[in-house]
């Protein structure tokens, strides 16, 4: 299958998926006990004011009608306005997406750079000391609550040791942000020669990135180890051993044959970490998409919740398309499917 046909097929598959996501999200927020009317009306509102706000938001319409209007708007690329901030949800999401992507990129990137070699090394000597140590380490990473880990890291590295800056968001409050080019303060600071801003943004990134890297590295280590052990016991590797191939070459072979499933797993990991990101952003006051989604859920901002979930679904699809394509580049014999 050519890449163009692959993309076309994926696009066709995505349509029913997106309609399903829009429908489920739309219904869930409405039956989930969220109701922004009370919050918007204020404490002195009369019944007439409640009714008026409900009417303005269209919440007095039948559910099917509300859904059809929303679906029509989504098709036109309009995710609506936040009921609380009155800002365009799409604009809000666009502004915050880069912020979260930057954190995700560094966090998962470092997690993978650490996790894959560690997992491989553990697999080459199963049950050895290193393997046992990494198993404990990955169990720690798996079981530790992200929220707690973030708070402990702030307490230790900022409050006790003073090694990291305070958890006050993406930049020190005493430094003004650089002109926006990409939305990443680090990159924009470098591009505009605002070294103070780039330095401040980079130092603010350290703790949340480490936190995310720990959380993402644990399952990568475990999965890489399992995949590599399976490849090590495959006929190909046994044949290579039987042929007397040097250990270095055998390991290269293992690495090559493990690459595709490991990469696929990391793709799954990226999409799965979005929930974890919300908590990290919350604790570090990061102001990204995760924090936006969490605030929207807590305050019952229907349009923002729907937009957030929809964008996450699109993001997941894009990640898997990219992974499929990268796998195809690594292993041209594999089918794009």
């Amino acid at each position: 299958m050519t890449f163009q046909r692959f993309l076309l097929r994926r696009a066709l598959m995505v349509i029913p998926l997106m309609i399903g996501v829009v429908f489920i999200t739309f219904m869930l927020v409405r039956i989930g006990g969220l109701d922004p009317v009370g919050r918007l009306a204020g404490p002195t509102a009369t019944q007439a004011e409640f009714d008026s706000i409900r009417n303005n938001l269209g919440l007095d319409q039948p559910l099917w009608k509300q859904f059809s209007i929303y679906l029509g708007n989504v098709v036109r690329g309009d995710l609506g306005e936040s009921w609380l901030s009155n800002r365009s949800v799409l604009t809000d999401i666009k502004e915050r997406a880069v912020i979260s992507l930057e954190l995700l990129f560094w966090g998962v990137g470092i997690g993978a750079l650490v996790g894959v070699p560690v997992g491989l090394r553990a697999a080459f000597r199963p049950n050895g000391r290193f393997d046992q140590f990494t198993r404990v380490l990955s169990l720690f990473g798996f079981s530790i609550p992200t929220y707690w880990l973030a708070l402990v890291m702030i307490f230790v590295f900022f409050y006790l040791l003073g090694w990291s800056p305070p958890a006050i968001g993406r930049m020190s409050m005493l430094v003004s942000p650089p002109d926006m080019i990409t939305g990443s303060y680090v990159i924009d600071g470098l591009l505009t020669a605002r070294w103070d801003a780039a330095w401040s943004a980079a130092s603010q990134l350290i703790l949340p990135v480490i936190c995310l890297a720990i959380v993402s590295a644990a399952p990568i280590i475990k999965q890489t180890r399992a995949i590599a052990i399976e490849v090590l016991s495959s006929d190909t590797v046994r044949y290579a051993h039987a042929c007397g191939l040097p250990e270095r070459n055998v390991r290269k072979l293992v690495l090559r044959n493990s690459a595709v499933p490991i990469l696929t797993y990391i793709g799954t990991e990226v999409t799965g970490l979005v929930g974890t990101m919300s908590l990290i952003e919350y604790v570090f006051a990061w102001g990204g998409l995760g924090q936006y989604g969490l605030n929207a859920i807590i305050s019952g901002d229907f349009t923002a919740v729907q937009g957030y979930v929809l964008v996450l679904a699109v993001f997941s699809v894009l990640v898997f398309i990219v992974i499929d394509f990268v796998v195809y580049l690594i292993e041209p014999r594999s089918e794009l499917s």
Partner: protein
Amino acid sequence: MNFIKKTAAASLALVLATTGMAQAETMILASPQVPEGFDGDALKAHTQNVVTQVYENLIGYGKMEVDGHTVLDPNDLRGHLAESWTTSEDGKTWVFKLKEGVMSPFGNELSAEDVAWGWNKSFNQKRTGNFIARVSNVASVEALSKYEVQFNLSAPSAIFLSALTLYVPGIYDTTEVKKHITDADPWALEWMQSNTAGFGAYHLESLRPDDQAVFVANPNYFGDKPFYDKVIYKEIPSEASRVTLLKAGQIQWIDRPSIQKVVDMQADDSVKVERATSRSVAAARMNPSCDVFSDVRVRQAFNYGVDKDALNTAVFAGQADIAKSIVSPIIAGSNQDYFSYDYDPEKAKALLAEAGYPDGIKEPVELLYSDAFWHQEPVAIQVAGMLKKIGLNVVPTRITSSEMRARAAPAVQDMCFFTWEDGPIVLDAVYAMYLMTHSKGVSNRAKYENNDLDVLIDAGRQELDTDKRMSLMNEAQKLWGADAPWILVSYPATFEAMAPNVSGWVYYPDEHERWRELRGD
């Protein structure tokens, strides 16, 4: 702490070098979120926290010292933006002379037109400001000259002057605001989503949603120059992070800490915690129109069956004040003698037996609660547990806060038993009683009606003689206490946490500090 010191020093040096503000003082205030709007008539999350800093009004409270603390004196109402005022013999027409030379940060002078415009905006929006106008009987406001504004009241109002201490209806710099009105938006409400234009001590300089709002001092402010030139209202969603930052000296103020954090911070020298008795009251309310609560003896039995001291310890960490009147003791005219239902389960059982329930009430009685106030759920659970001991089958049941507000609206009021908190924003006993106990009070919420009480309160609303008003409200509290329509729990104290060097905090009935009064030296 090397990293922090170096970064802070470098950043500070940079700021000083680039701004030239050698004496600039900045206060960083950490809050769960950045304000969602800046229109006092349409209160959104954290709007009230900041409009109180931007929009000041015609009248202000004087201050007095009580037990070493500076507090507002509800009996000392003095001109703020107003220099003086006169009233007609029938008490229905008030003319205020404005101070001259009061300037907004945009360089425009306060005029009577500005005052009238703000009130007309509130009348038009029919929200918070309109409610204030209604309870203080203000029918219309008109500019007589540049510095004279007239208020026309539908009836004399004893709380009218107190109402003029509030941030809403706001007084806007209409010269600036009118630049942003359109045919579709004649009150510039869209512009007010992210801008301010008042005559107060601060104004909004910049806003980054989900990040921070920066306020700077009004350079033309008519009052004393504020100590802080800049206030950064920073969004730090996690309370644990806010407390850590305060303890580390990175921020100077955190917004309304939870009771658990208050207890933690009270034991920490690196943080200063201020406390004030609240003007509001937490209670479990009984609806006399429901069969089970129609008999006053049942309502009294419910009150005797609840141990308020135990509730204070279990729910409020012992930090609240036990409520003995619906009117908080910080309000002049509060009488704490008429609601004496000390814990007495035997007396409760006897009253129930008298009312025809010798074996208690086996039918489930739902005690509704929501998440509108943090204490609603634990109070409901504790109260249900205590009432079970006197044979009452009370079932705590959670509903959404908006459902609770909707069902408590004047036209509905169909909840039989629920927990809630209410309090007057004006420090006045008549206002408090009208708001929460009058059959037309919007915070009555549980269909309590007593004609004799209504008569007393209505008389109090129109009585301008302070002694007579207080006497009427004394009688009203006695009547209400005997009727026992609420299980009064406590006045949940208000706490503010700040850096140890911050001083000048005074409790305001809207429960928001005034930045202009704070000092950091």
